[in-house]
C-alpha cells in the first residue's frame, strides 16, 4: 500500500533534565495494523504514547498521526485518535451510561444516547448501565474505558498497558475486543510489558529499549533474530492461567487469529523449545 502510514515517528527524543527517556525513536505503523510496543517498566512506552496523543511535547524529531504532525496540527491529530491510558479514565460519580453519553456529546455526534446503548450492549454493560462507575469491578471499568475510546470510530487507537492490573478473565475480554477492532480495520498501537500479550495481539512488535527501537518486525521476523531452533520434546505443563480458568469454569471464548496457532496449542516457549 502506498497510503500515508497511520503513525510515523522519526528520531523522536525526550529528556527530563539529565534523564534521557527517548534517544531517537523511529517507528512506522501502517494503516490497519496492530503494533505492540514492548519494553520494561520505565522504557518510555508511555512517553511515546503521550507524545502521539498530543499530551506531551517532544524535544526533537517528528511524529505524525494520519499525516498530521502532532506538534503543529494537534487538533487534527485529536480528531483521528483515541487514547486508553494506563488507568481506566472513567468518571466514577457518573453512571456507565452517562460516561458514554458525555463522550459522545463532547464529540458532537448525533444521538449520543443511541451510541451509548449500542456500546453498553457490545461490552456487556447494559445491566450495570444505570449504576455509578464507583461500584464497577476492575474489568468492567476497563471495558467502559475502552468503550468510551471507541466513540466516534477513531481510526487510530492507543492502548497504554490495557491489561495491567486486570484479572485473567478481564484480560482475555480485552484481548478479544482488540482483535475485533483490528478486524474492523482500526489501527492499534498498544504498549505492554507482557510478552504473551504482544504475541497474542500484534501483527508487528517493536521493542523499545534504552530510548530506541532496537527490534521491529513480525513475530516470525523477530524469531529469526535468534539462532535456529532445535527440535526437542518437552512435556507441556498447563500454565497457571489455564488451570485458574479451568477451575473457575467461567472461561470466555478465545477466538484466536486464524493465521497463527493459538497459544495453548504451541509448546511452552518459556520452557525453551529452542
Amino acid at each position, binding site marked *: 500500500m502506498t497510503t500515508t502510514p497511520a503513525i510515523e515517528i522519526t528520531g523522536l527524543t525526550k529528556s527530563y533534565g539529565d534523564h534521557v527517556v527517548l534517544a531517537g525513536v523511529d517507528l512506522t505503523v501502517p494503516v490497519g495494523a496492530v503494533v505492540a510496543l514492548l519494553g520494561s517498566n520505565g522504557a518510555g512506552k508511555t512517553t511515546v504514547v503521550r507524545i502521539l496523543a*498530543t*499530551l*506531551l511535547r517532544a524535544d526533537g524529531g517528528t511524529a505524525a498521526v494520519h499525516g498530521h504532525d502532532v506538534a503543529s496540527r494537534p487538533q487534527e491529530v*485529536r480528531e483521528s485518535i*483515541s487514547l486508553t491510558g494506563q*488507568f481506566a*479514565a472513567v468518571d466514577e460519580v457518573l453512571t456507565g451510561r452517562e460516561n458514554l453519553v458525555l463522550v459522545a456529546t463532547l*464529540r458532537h455526534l448525533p444521538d449520543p444516547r443511541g451510541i451509548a446503548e449500542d456500546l453498553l450492549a457490545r461490552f456487556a454493560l447494559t445491566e450495570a448501565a444505570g449504576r455509578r462507575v464507583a461500584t464497577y469491578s476492575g474489568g468492567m471499568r476497563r471495558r467502559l474505558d475502552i468503550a*468510551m475510546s471507541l466513540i466516534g470510530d477513531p481510526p487510530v487507537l492507543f492502548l497504554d498497558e490495557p491489561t495491567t492490573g486486570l484479572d485473567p478473565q478481564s484480560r482475555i475480554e480485552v484481548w478479544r475486543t482488540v482483535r475485533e477492532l483490528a478486524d474492523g480495520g482500526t489501527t492499534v498501537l498498544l504498549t505492554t510489558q507482557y510478552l504473551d500479550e504482544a504475541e497474542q495481539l500484534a501483527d508487528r512488535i517493536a521493542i523499545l529499549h534504552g530510548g530506541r527501537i532496537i527490534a521491529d518486525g513480525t513475530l516470525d521476523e523477530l524469531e529469526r533474530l535468534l539462532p535456529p531452533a532445535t527440535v526437542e520434546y518437552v512435556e507441556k505443563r498447563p500454565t497457571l492461567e489455564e488451570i485458574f480458568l479451568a477451575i473457575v469454569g467461567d472461561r470466555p471464548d478465545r477466538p484466536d487469529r486464524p493465521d497463527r496457532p493459538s497459544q495453548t496449542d504451541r509448546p511452552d516457549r518459556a520452557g525453551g523449545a529452542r
Partner: protein
Amino acid sequence: MTTELLRDTVVLSQRCLRHVLRSPDTIITTAVTPIAMLLLFVYVFGGAIEVGGGDYVDYLLPGILLITVASGVSYTAFRLFTDVSGGLFERFQSMPIARSAVLWGHVLTSLVANLVSVALVVLVAVAMGFRSGAGVLAWLAVLGLVVLFTLALTWLAVIPGLTARSVDGVSGFSYPLIFLPFISSAFVPTEGMPAPVEWFAEHQPVTSIVDTIRNLFAAQPVGATGWVALAWCVGLLVVAHTLAMATYRRRTT
C-alpha cells in the same frame, strides 16, 4: 473556536454540577463552618466586641461570606485533582474539544456551588436577625463583588488542582485563605490592633472588600474603598487566571 469553547464548557459544566448534586454534602460542608463561626461570634464573642453601634451580625456577615468562598474553592481544587489523578483530564485533553473547556467547566461549577453556599449562609444570618436596607443595585453590587472574588479564588484553586500530588496537598492551600479574614476588619475594627498588624489589615484585600460589602448592605456610600475592593478583585482574578493558565500549559509540554 469560541462557540466550540462555549458548547464544550456547557457540557463539562453540566458534568461537574452533577458531581456537586450527587454529593450535596460538599455544599453543606462549605456552609457549615462559616455558619458555626457566625453563631459563635454573634452569640458568644459578639457581646464583648464593640463595633460602634448596630447589630454585630450585620457587621460580621460580609467577612463570613468571604470565608465561605475561601473554604468552598477547596472542593473545586479537589474535583479537578480527582480528574487529573484519575486520568479523565488526559482523556479530555486528547479529544477534539476546546481544551480549556475542561478548566472552565470546573470554574463555572465552582461559581454556582459557592453562590449556593453563600445564599445558605445569608439565609441563616437573616434568621439570626441580619437586616439590610440595601436596594436592588446595592445587592447586585454585592453579588458582583462576591462573583469576582469567587472567580479569583477559583482560578487560584486550579493551580493546586493541577499540580498537587496528594489529596492533602490539595486541601492545604485553602487554609491561609480562610485565615486571612481574621487579620482584617471582618471580625473587629482594625483600629484596636497593634500598628504593624493594623497596617497589614488595612492593606490586604479582605478589608476593603468586607468594608465595601458592609456599606452596601447598610445602604451607605462606599466611596473610594469600593474602587479599591474592585481593583483587588479584578487584580487577583487576572493574576490567578494567568498563573493557572501558565501551570496548565506547563503540564502539557
